[in-house]
């Protein structure tokens, strides 16, 4: 096989990869579907989708660090990025859980209020609590993106 033939194969491969790049599913596409505010439960679904998407890359990270052919320095970088991202994602899941529990309490209180067993004040206070938890969750959602991006960058290298 000549150098010219090799170059031709690589040119074809590059064109194929370029073409494939046009129809890939990106993490952003997954989140666009999950975070669609036109549907109920979008806040918690969005947070869960971030963790689910992260898990896809965490699985790749595990394969990466177990691969004996990968350079040790890169493995160290992947392990470090994975550790930081995992902590952020676990905090995000804790915040999501807190939000879901408060929402369940609020639903129960509203039913009790309808039956005359809870006061509007109690419901109002729970609503405020839910608003605080929702703001917290939005902050966590914003925080996660750079960590996932770093891991994607490392695994793509």
């Amino acid at each position, binding site marked *: 096989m000549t150098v010219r033939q090799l170059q031709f*194969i690589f040119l074809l491969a590059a064109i194929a990869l370029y073409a494939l790049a046009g129809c*890939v599913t990106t993490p952003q596409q*997954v989140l666009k579907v999950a975070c669609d505010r036109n549907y109920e*439960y979008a806040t918690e679904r969005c947070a869960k989708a971030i*963790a689910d998407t992260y898990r896809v890359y965490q699985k790749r990270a*595990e394969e990466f660090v177990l691969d004996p052919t990968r350079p040790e320095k890169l493995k160290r970088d992947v392990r470090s990025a994975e*550790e930081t991202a995992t902590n952020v994602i676990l905090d995000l*899941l804790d915040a*999501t859980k807190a939000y*879901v529990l408060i929402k369940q309490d609020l639903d129960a209180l509203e039913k009790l209020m309808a039956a005359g067993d809870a006061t509007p004040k109690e419901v109002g206070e729970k609503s405020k609590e839910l608003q605080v938890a929702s703001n917290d969750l939005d902050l966590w959602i914003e925080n996660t993106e750079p960590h996932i991006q770093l891991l994607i960058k490392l695994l793509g290298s």
Partner: protein
Amino acid sequence: MSDYLFWFTLVTRLAGVIAAKNGVAPKELEYFKLLTDVSRITMFTQADLKALEAKYEAERGTPVTVEELDALSADIRARNERIQATGEKP
């Protein structure tokens, strides 16, 4: 998408084998290995992301349960422990 990548992986691997049989230098063969490797990783990632997109599309408007969140946390934590355990021990 994953079908295309499957064929792409297969073609690059075959091209690598043909190149090796035709006396291409080992250094050049490394490029084939790299291409195959990159497409393999992309293929699995793409399959997972596509499945997630379909799952979230189908589950639109449904609530998230505490049990689901706990299971997800436990899985992520367990994998994190396995990944970190592969590092050098201090």
